[in-house]
């Protein structure tokens, strides 16, 4: 058993453990639950890209994909959080910290 077989097993385990997060996306009660689960799946996809690179013996190429994917995932999650923050502020009163200006 080589390390590549072990890496294939790690990838399959990661995919199987993404299923609970996927169920949380499907029946999350709030939108933020879904965003958290999407964030978890995105981070694990970056790990999975490194695993794919190890399996195909091309880590030098796939590590760049993983870095770009982690960056995009962070940007998307921050954008969603800011958007919902603004939506909550528009819906109700302004929070006490920002009333002074």
């Amino acid at each position, binding site marked *: 058993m080589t390390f590549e077989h072990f890496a294939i097993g790690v990838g399959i385990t990661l995919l199987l453990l993404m299923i609970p997060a996927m169920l949380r996306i499907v029946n999350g009660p709030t939108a933020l639950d879904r965003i958290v*689960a999407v964030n978890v799946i995105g981070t694990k996809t970056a790990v999975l890209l490194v695993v794919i690179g190890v399996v195909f013996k091309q880590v030098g190429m796939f590590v760049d994909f993983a870095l770009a994917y982690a960056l995009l995932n962070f940007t998307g999650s921050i954008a969603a959080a800011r958007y919902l923050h603004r939506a909550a502020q528009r819906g109700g*009163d302004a929070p006490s910290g920002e009333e002074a200006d």
Partner: protein
Amino acid sequence: MILTILSIVLILSGLVFFLGAAVGLMRFPDFYSRMHAAGKGDTLSTLLVISGFALYQLRDIHDLSHDWPVLLVVLKLLAIVVFIYLTSPTSTSALADAGWEDGIDPVIEPGRENHLEDDCHRTPPSSPQP
């Protein structure tokens, strides 16, 4: 050989932490505890798994003047580790803040008070429109 065993141990412990994150994301009762499980377990498991693979890549370096692309790959993997270490708690904090402002209430045991309500001065979710 010792590097391979060490990297396998790191990767397997990372998978154990990701199992904890998945179970917590599935079974915890409210939004904040689910976010707690997802944020912590996800960050630590990602760090451990990618560090394990970086340690395994380090095995291929024999002569540094000839094997420097492998060292570059290891440095890129460590860059991913540092990046996830910085950004994953940041996005978790931003999402928890958005959830609090959005009016998601934590599940609190009956008979206990929500002291967070006193500390944070949130606008109540059912406040009338101005």
